[in-house]
């Protein structure tokens, strides 16, 4: 049932493509949701038909996505849907590749995972920029992805890729020391420190609570990281233990009365009010 196949060059300079993604975004075409499996088959043909305008193919993809929620007996055409997605995952149009690989990885598709991993190991095979590939691999993390992510953290092609590699490693118990280091490093991108706090919170919650207290007591750390630390204490901390930490209360009081945003002041006030401070 598949329309003509068209394999595309995979040695596209994906970074350049990524940077121009917004400019190449397609104008939407009208979308009609498939009502039954016959409709689905028609939409699959449209999706794979490289002779059709990309707007029409993207509309078909959106329609198919909606049909996956609503069409009775969709499972009977699911194999065709997956096959079509795999086919267009190497299409020349990056937005289509992104969407197809996104759906596939969210359905834990081994084919897509292999393609994305291969692209991270060898950029000439990359179907997507590394940050997108890492993000999609995070939908179903396997040990072999950890090794690639660790390598990217050490030598990132860009900051977004490093951030997504860190996000992927957040499920890796062996990476707790890495996140401890990132959170404590004032020279690190603050967004990465924010992510490290989140990762550490589940990999080693006690460690995060200690680090968060340390950050709030540190007069020289950044206000936004203090806000993240305070949220971690407020949301997930041991109220009784926190209440006994006078230096922490002083640190939070200082934070709440410093030249910081109204929102942060409010967070500090809310926290302190729990302890009648």
């Amino acid at each position, binding site marked *: 049932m598949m329309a003509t196949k068209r394999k595309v060059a995979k040695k596209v300079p994906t970074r350049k493509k990524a940077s121009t993604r917004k400019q190449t975004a397609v104008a939407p075409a009208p979308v009609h949701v498939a009502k039954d499996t016959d409709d689905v088959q028609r939409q699959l043909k449209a999706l794979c038909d490289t002779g059709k305008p990309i707007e029409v193919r993207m509309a078909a993809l959106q329609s198919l*996505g909606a049909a996956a929620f609503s069409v009775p007996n969709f499972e009977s055409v699911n194999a065709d849907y997956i096959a079509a997605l795999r086919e267009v995952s190497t299409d020349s149009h990056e937005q289509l590749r992104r969407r197809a690989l996104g759906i596939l990885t969210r359905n834990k598709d081994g084919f897509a995972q292999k393609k994305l991993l291969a692209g991270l190991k060898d950029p000439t095979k990359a179907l997507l920029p590394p940050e997108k590939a890492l993000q999609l691999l995070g939908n179903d993390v396997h040990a072999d992805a950890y090794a690639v992510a660790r390598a990217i953290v050490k030598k990132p092609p860009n900051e977004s890729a490093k951030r997504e590699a860190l996000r992927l490693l957040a499920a890796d118990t062996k990476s707790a020391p890495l996140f401890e280091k990132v959170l404590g490093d004032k020279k690190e991108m603050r967004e990465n420190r924010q992510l490290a706090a989140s990762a550490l919170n589940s990999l080693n919650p006690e460690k995060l609570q200690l680090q968060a207290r340390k950050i709030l007591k540190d007069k020289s750390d950044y206000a936004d990281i203090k806000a993240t630390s305070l949220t971690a204490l407020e949301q997930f901390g041991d109220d009784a233990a926190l209440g006994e930490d006078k230096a922490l209360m002083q640190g939070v009081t200082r934070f709440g009365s410093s030249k910081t945003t109204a929102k942060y002041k409010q967070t500090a006030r809310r926290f302190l009010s729990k302890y009648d401070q």
Partner: protein
Amino acid sequence: MEVELQINNGIAPEARFVTWSPSPCRIRVTNPSGANAPTVSVKIASVSAANGGAVGFRKGTTGAFASTLALTVPTDGTTVPFFTAGKFGQPSTNNGDVKIEARVGNTLVGSVELMVRIRKNANKLTNAERDRFVAAFAKLNNQGLGRFTDFNNMHKNPNLSQAHSAPGFLPWHRAYLLDLERELQIINPSVALPYWRFDQPAPNIFTRDFLGASDANGTVKFNNGNPLEFWKTDNTPGISRTPDFPTSQAPPNPMSEAQTLALGTQFRTFRGMEGDPHGLAHTSFGGFIQTPATAAKDPLFFLLHCNVDRLWAKWQRQNGRFDPGAATSFDERPTSKPGHRLNDTMWPWNGITSATDPTRPPTAPGGAMATSPCVGAPVPPVRVRDCIDYHGVIDAASTMGFDYDDVQL
């Protein structure tokens, strides 16, 4: 003299929440000192804080609600029933921002603070309402270790057939949302689930202080201090979401509210909204929310579905489709799969797994539906029919304890 006012027939603070539906209440004299007759005339009235909610009263199960009510109350402690309901168009913004005062003559003899707790348009929440909702949701997630895990697991393969592509789609999701909302209310009882009107611009939702703003990679960013910065599902932190539309505008493809409400007067045709607008609202994004098996990993899912449920509620009111027994209120088919017929119990709240019924999924995450201190419905094990008369229009005991800011009783 002192009187006690019982909201939802209870004195617990958790029971002091009302909607547009009538809530059964009672009043009794707890301290008769000063009384010189077997009964006393007590006048109750609604007193609203600035921007607060408002309630009305009536004596019996029928009739109009008034802003005051005179009651003859025995001084021996016997309770006298009455009903209260939120005044449509004036929901609360904070817990306790409306008070019922009881007076004998001009003397205040009792009062109780309550909340008209209503599901509202997420784009129009006050900052305080938004922050309370976000904090409760983050707490429910508890960095991927909390009760939210059950809700994530309910809406995954191989369980989706219990909820989708069949007549039970709308009832199942109504129960699902209510279960989640009640869990949020255990964390903070002043929280009601807000809805995302996907046929209108909703720029306030897609901000770093609320449900996050997506970067070019489709990673959702939060401001430091937004508790959702610790969001985690399936061991991975964060949310992936790429809008296909400028978030200052509405997505272009889902049909409008007016079109949805015009899908027909029979549930059989109205339930076609599962594809459009529901499905197209999901697929107006890339990321978690685009795919059935991962959609519930994004908190936006629950605001989207709250709007889907609101549309159903609006359609029900427009067409009078509250009677579960009426053929127009539900698409009853003997051939529908289990969980999608009117009298079927719904998974996972029924606790039935494939161990005893091969048509059901292998596990039933979350157990029974959370109970409410305000209403008794739905009674376990939760049937499809239990989710239709949510207002208690046909049977007052069916009231599920939620309402929408723009759907009148």
